[in-house]
């Protein structure tokens, strides 16, 4: 709904000036809390405003995002913050692709034009028309050097200026360990890159008859890239693929069978005398998101101060009505407003409150405040900031440190998780000092490769921290509402973080950056995961095994009797020590085939059977 009505709603929101809209809100807010103004925490109003129904879940580029940014800008004016040097506005736009659809892609084979529903472009395809001979390139997987074994679907094939047909997924009957490696390079984007690097003009994807979702088109996944990935890429259904193979005197089923034990010597082949014309057209709906960027200038001259900026930030966008596909809402809640009170009105409120705390006392460094948009769609806002043209933003190498806040409103048992602490040797000392006054039961994790904007800053070698109070069953659901926020503890986090920012701001030397090695490598990413288990891992946990933050209603894990708090230590005979082990173990599971799960509940070892379903 928001997508279709965009122009009109945007006008409406412009008509609602910030002040009139806010006045309306504050009244309802006071009613909601029984008029108890004096007892209000500094973050409560921010969270309740940002997570209110009128903001419709703050989807990046939507009118709700605009209302949210208006509110933040209003608050910034109150504390005397300024737009970044050289800017006249707090709002800094960036463009992204909000959705893709097929614009009438076709495959012409032997004079016959196939079209929807037999053909569809892949979301990352270039637009264009190409002609060429057709070569079957097996699973189209290239395992980079340095892995435990080599596998290259292109090793004996000449695909230059040709059209390659590849199977979706990876060899079905391979050994578990082989699958673990292959699955990491089975993402379709990765396959397209391999095809392009081998000189192919186009890639056609087929779901083989021996695979899950046999014969179906690969889905047009959500993709935020602004342009295609340099190759024409389409998917065709089983019928169309069979016709293509038959016209070359081959059988698709036999071709897949020959490859399915992952024997590296089994190869693809050219389809004799088969040529095709591929026309791909992806319609990308461009949108503009807005980061809100402001700063509190240093109170003394920064000449001679090394790295004269310290930055704090939080994403303020959320899932809207769940239209971007990243919702975990059950069927009955689809299309409802995802309020995102914890994710991440809480972090946005924290940054506002920290800025208010820091506005008065003296500062040796400029304090940059950022409210990112597009985080939920793939860290778009912070990446736009990091890759901005030189001189148009604060340069990353001038930032002494970055503190990120993402989901900080649902503290349990006084536990505060601080991640990315490995990005500087200074952090643990600073955390220890500041926590003596703050008094949290800190869980400190070194890993900076977190699914939030801190990854952007760590990637730019800025010493970073990200604060997190843990996941919960309302994560990415419409039930993530402001009434569930723990404001007392959110306010304590504000005080704690403000103390850390002050220390960094006043220090002579900026924190030193340390690069933490990434634990999981691979070009496949999650695209290779076809299994759905319905588990919600608790990423903040340090326990040995996989601690469940919850299970998805109606999913296989729930059916297996698993619940929040259980620790999975073994699945299908593979021991699980951490989230990475679990991800790899998923590759070994087979859809519909029951797997033994060993887990700990209240310290007691228990067993159950989980039957994985297919991820569509």
């Amino acid at each position, binding site marked *: 709904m928001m997508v279709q009505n965009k122009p009109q709603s945007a006008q409406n929101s412009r008509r609602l000036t910030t002040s009139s809209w806010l006045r309306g809100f504050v009244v309802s807010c006071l009613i909601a809390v029984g008029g108890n103004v004096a007892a209000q925490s500094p973050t409560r109003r921010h969270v309740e405003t940002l997570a209110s129904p009128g903001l419709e879940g703050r989807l990046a580029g939507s009118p709700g995002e605009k209302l949210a940014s208006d509110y933040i800008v209003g608050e910034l004016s109150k504390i005397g913050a300024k737009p970044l040097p050289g800017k006249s506005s707090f709002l800094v736009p960036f463009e992204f692709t909000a959705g893709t659809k097929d614009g009438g892609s076709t495959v012409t084979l032997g004079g016959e034009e196939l079209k929807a529903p037999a053909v569809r472009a892949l979301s990352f395809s270039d637009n264009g028309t190409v002609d060429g001979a057709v070569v079957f390139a097996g699973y189209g997987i290239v395992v980079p050097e340095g892995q435990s074994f080599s596998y290259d679907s292109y090793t004996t094939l000449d695909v230059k200026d040709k059209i390659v047909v590849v199977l979706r997924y990876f060899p079905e009957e391979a050994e578990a360990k082989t699958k673990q490696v292959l699955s990491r390079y089975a993402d379709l984007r990765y396959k397209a890159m391999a095809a392009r690097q081998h000189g192919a003009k186009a890639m056609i994807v087929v779901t083989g008859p021996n695979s899950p979702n046999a014969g179906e088109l690969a889905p047009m996944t959500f993709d935020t890239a602004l342009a295609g990935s340099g190759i024409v890429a389409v998917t065709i259904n089983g019928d169309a693929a069979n016709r293509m193979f038959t016209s070359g005197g081959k059988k698709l089923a036999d071709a897949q069978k020959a490859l399915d034990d992952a024997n590296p010597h089994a190869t693809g082949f050219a389809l004799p005398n088969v040529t095709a014309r591929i026309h791909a057209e992806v319609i990308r709906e461009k949108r503009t998101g807005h980061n809100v960027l402001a700063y509190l200038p240093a109170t003394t001259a920064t000449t001679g101060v090394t790295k004269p900026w310290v930055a704090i930030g939080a994403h303020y966008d959320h899932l809207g009505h769940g239209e971007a596909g990243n919702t975990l809402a059950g069927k009955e809640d689809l299309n409802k407003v995802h309020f995102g009170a914890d994710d991440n009105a809480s972090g946005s409120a924290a940054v506002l409150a920290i800025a208010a705390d820091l506005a008065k006392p003296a500062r040796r460094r400029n304090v940059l405040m950022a409210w990112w948009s597009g985080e939920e769609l793939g860290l778009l806002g912070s990446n736009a900031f990091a890759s901005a043209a030189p001189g148009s933003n604060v340069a990353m190498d001038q930032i002494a440190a970055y503190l990120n806040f993402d989901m900080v409103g649902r503290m349990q048992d006084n536990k505060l998780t601080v991640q990315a602490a490995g990005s500087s040797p200074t952090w643990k000392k600073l955390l*220890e000092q500041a926590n003596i006054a703050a008094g949290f039961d800190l869980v*400190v994790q070194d890993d900076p490769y977190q699914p939030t904007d801190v990854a952007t800053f760590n990637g730019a070698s800025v010493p970073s921290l990200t604060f997190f109070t843990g996941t919960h069953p309302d994560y990415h659901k419409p039930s993530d509402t402001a009434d569930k926020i723990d404001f007392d503890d959110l306010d304590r986090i504000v005080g704690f973080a403000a103390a850390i920012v002050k220390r960094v701001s006043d220090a002579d030397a900026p924190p030193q950056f340390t690069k933490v090695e990434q634990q999981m490598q691979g070009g496949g990413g999650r695209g290779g995961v076809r299994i759905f288990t319905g588990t919600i891992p608790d990423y903040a946990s340090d326990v040995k095994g996989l601690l469940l933050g919850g299970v998805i209603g109606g999913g296989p894990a729930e059916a297996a009797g698993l619940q929040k708090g259980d620790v999975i230590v073994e699945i299908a005979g593979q021991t699980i020590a951490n989230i990475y082990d679990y991800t790899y173990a998923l590759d070994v599971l087979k859809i519909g085939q029951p797997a033994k799960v060993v887990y700990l509940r209240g310290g007691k070892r228990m067993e159950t059977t989980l039957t994985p379903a297919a991820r569509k």
Partner: protein
Amino acid sequence: MIPRRILTALLIGASAWFATLKAEQPTAAYQERDFLTRVRRLTVEGRRAGEGYWSPDGKRLVFQSEREAGNPFYQIYVLDMASGETKRISTGIGKTTCAFFRPGSDEIEFASTHADPKSKQYQDDELAFRASGKERRYSWDYDPEMDIYAYSETTGAMKRLTTVRGYDAEGSYSPDGQWIAFSSMRDAYNRTLSDAEQKQLQTDPSFFAEIYIMKADGSGQKRLTNVPGYDGGPFFTQDGKKIVWRRFDEKGLIADVWTMNPDGSEQKQITDFGSMSWAPYMHPSGAYYFFASNKLGFENFEVFIVDAAGAKEPVRVTYTDGFDGLPVPSPDGKQLAWTSTRSGGGAGQLFLAQWNHEKAVEALKAAPAKKSSKKS
């Protein structure tokens, strides 16, 4: 962590034996939050930290931590609870342990091996061992060069209080600041040992540890216990009338909390779990002792409390897997500092929580009479 209140050699080789003990189910009448609220982690920096003891005014903690590059052993630090600042007071060289504020003075006692010329070599050896990718289980080696020092916070001077060969450590002051109770293994070095004793010294020197007392200036050193097996971790009660410590059996497998008069008379066993019960410390109310025990599983130490007379069955306080021990109440009795592995990673860190004294008194009152571990 842990010498004063041990572990170490005991964890090696004894686990099979302990595994045969039937893990008793807790009576489950309570949970951790009945006694401890606002649980918080105090130390973050470094590999491990533990043995935190309060200054008499409750504003500072002295503790041991491995947190500086170049020394893989504990050093002693003072943490200011107002500023969060931490300062090292030991020399940075060698191994140290078991610090304690001297009431009514600017002194802090602790044990250290820095005077041993080989100290630096031991550090480098340990670092090289770690660099080889191996990691030994934490162990405390009862270094015979360990001696007790008094550090002056005003001048920074260190006064050596013990000089004889043999491990001298685990010291603590009397409430008036005039006496130090400590543990020493000097008995293994000041006489000719039998062959059996010589062998014992090599496998487990702690067998020779006994409780001693001396004046705060190091004079008048006097032995208080004379029973085979490790006697260690002595503390005065809040009124100074008793010393509470833990006594191991000859095999070093079972320990219990004992009390005695400061002259060594009236030695009395307080706990009787038939497991490793140690690290006793009295609550400032004088009503009960804290201690830690692995009654519920060989490597699962939990904090318990027991009434001062040892008449009742102890009450469990912590309910978290792993190590919870070395409990020390704040001087006002409202907080508890202890050492725990609950933050993960296997190494201990200091934790702090609000202590519910009223609930503790109530729970002890309701506790059944003490059971004996000897009963079948």
